[in-house]
């Protein structure tokens, strides 16, 4: 925990997304209880907590992926730039173009590397010519630190890459639609340490352009990459604040026991 980068770059205090009183029920299972969180602009926010405490559930509220779960019921208010994302007038498809997502298990499309990255820009009509599209694909792959490894085989299937490369391809795919917020659900859990280090480095670079929310099981990772940390326990948000504060002087005894390894 001595490798904290949070001091290296100033943190803006402007909230990009704010959640108030968010509750999620899966059928009768009350999975998320009354969560208030502000996601700051150009900041990496980490969600930590034991398994099953609702981190993914909350993350999926932020881009309305929970809409695809039939039994899920979301209440409360989540705003992005002051607009309620659960307003009936909001089309979740449009929201998801602005709030990109990277999943726990790398899930590239069974298509070529190029098509994987080009898919988002294509369906959103972000580019007009093939040259523009090529450019977006290249810059996205560069941002995901994958360009040098795949530039000679863009037509090869994305599913043929190694696990770490696949996850970076998924990041490139999410970045290609120029989202404003990037959600990552345990992006490194399937990766080896070297690939993990690459992805972490990447997250730190992405922070210059987006706000990044990352769910992680590893407290070291949270400490390394994030400026803000939220600790969830049994569906409630226990503590939320500057990463340094959470790890050095947590206010809540549950947070302290978790980060010292006594619950989890």
């Amino acid at each position, binding site marked *: 925990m001595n490798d904290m980068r949070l001091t290296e770059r100033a943190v803006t205090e402007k909230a990009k997304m704010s959640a108030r009183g968010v509750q999620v029920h899966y059928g009768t299972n009350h999975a998320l209880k009354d969560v208030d969180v502000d996601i700051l602009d150009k900041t990496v926010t980490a969600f930590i907590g034991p398994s099953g405490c609702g981190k993914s559930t909350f993350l999926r509220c932020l*881009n309305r*992926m929970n809409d*695809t779960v*039939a039994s899920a019921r979301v209440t409360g208010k989540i705003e992005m730039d002051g607009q309620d994302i659960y307003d009936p007038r909001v089309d979740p*498809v*449009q*929201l*998801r*173009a*602005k709030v*990109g*997502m*990277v*999943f726990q*298990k790398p*899930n*590239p*499309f*069974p298509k070529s590397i190029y098509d994987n990255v080009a*898919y*988002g820009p294509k*369906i*959103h009509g972000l580019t007009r010519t093939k040259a523009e599209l090529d450019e977006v694909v290249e810059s996205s792959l560069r941002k995901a630190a994958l360009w040098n490894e795949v530039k000679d085989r863009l037509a090869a*299937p994305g*599913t043929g890459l190694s696990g770490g490369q696949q996850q970076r391809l*998924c990041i490139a*795919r*999410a970045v*290609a*639609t120029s989202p404003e917020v990037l959600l990552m659900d345990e992006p490194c859990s399937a990766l080896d340490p070297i690939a993990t280090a690459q992805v972490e480095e990447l997250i730190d670079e992405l922070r210059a352009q987006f706000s990044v929310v990352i769910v992680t099981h590893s407290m070291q990772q949270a400490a390394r990459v994030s400026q803000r940390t939220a600790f969830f326990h049994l569906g409630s948000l226990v503590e939320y604040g500057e990463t340094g504060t959470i790890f050095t002087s947590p206010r809540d005894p549950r947070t302290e026991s978790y980060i010292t390894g006594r619950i989890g």
Partner: protein
Amino acid sequence: MSDATGHKTSLLEPDARTKARNAAERRFRLMGLSAVGLGVLALVVLLSSVLGNGLSAFQQTSISLTIPLDEKKLDKSGKRDPAVMAKVTTVGYGKLIQEALKDMLAEAGVDDGGLKPKELMGLLSKEAAADLRDRVLADPSLVGTTLSFNAMANGRVDGFFKGRVTLKSAERDANITPEQLQLAQRMADAGLIKTGFNWAFLTNPDASELRPESAGLGVAILGSAYMMLIVLVLSLPIGVAASIYLEELAPKNRWTDLIEINIANLAAVPSIVFGILALALFINFLGLPQSAPIVGGLVLTLMTLPTIIIATRASLKSVPQGVRDAALGVGASKMQAIFHHVLPLAMPGILTGTILGLARALGESAPLLLIGMVAFVKDYPASPPQGFFDPASALPVQVYSWTQRADPAFAERASGAIIVLMLFLLTMNAVAIILRRRFERRW
């Protein structure tokens, strides 16, 4: 070995428990092997019986005649007008054939055994004169020339060379005499009777009870092809659309559960029930024609739909959720996620299910019997779309109606038709496998 402790046994010698387990495994293997063996045996018996009975249907004995087409007899006016020439009936053409046959025997020096002209003609198919007449009317310029004409041998003569008819059986046969067969044998020895591949079996329409040698599958193959076309065009889009709706879009509630159960039940409904439905709905209520491929196609579509829906839903289900999440996660709409990502991945399963459904429909006979497709149809249906409304037959029904006829020559034809049907089914299954391989992608 120190079995007394119960723990320290030699690794080199299996203990009692291991022995029992291994024995159980051996027994299970043996049972499985015998089950497979039984299945293979049944298949071999079935195939050899069908092939043994039916392969000879693809051979046909024929007599090639050289017939001078005399203008005076066929077209007195000399105008070559088919309408006028049609006045000459098959009797007139029969006479020409009779002369030609006599001349041929005389020329080859084959003793005609003192047979009367009528008995001589009995060697040939009753269809021969009509065939010749059709050919001349279709091409009037043949009149005045000398035509070399391949006349089919009578079914009994054909059977004689295939071993189905013997001199002994001919004694009790009103349709043939031993003397006729002996003449046929002499003609064969002189090279006047030949056996060749029976294209007419694949192209001719059905023929009446007395002319088995000219009965063919042409109308049945066309009818089956038309119906398969209708089934494919209707059931694939409807089935896939219904599956996509049910699997990807519909809310999961009591109604969709009910629909799901009903589709599963529908797939198990006996096909004859579909026939009754078709009779009531399409023929009696909607007034569509009987024996028409359109009605057969519609009822087979109804039967195939549940199969396709079940196969399609299964293959949609087997597409990993991650693919949908990935597409939705970059902001694709539900339709885009389905059509760009889920459907292509489900394609091999959908196509396999569709082809297997089609194959089942191709072999189905019960519902077709009920809608009158068993009728005797001599005329080819027109080309689509109006051909869909013309009377036609179907392969399995043709098999059925041939097995109903008395002449053993039709039993041979029925087995031959089964071989054709099975070849079609084999081809369809092969196509299913090829499509599956081609579309299959790993993820």
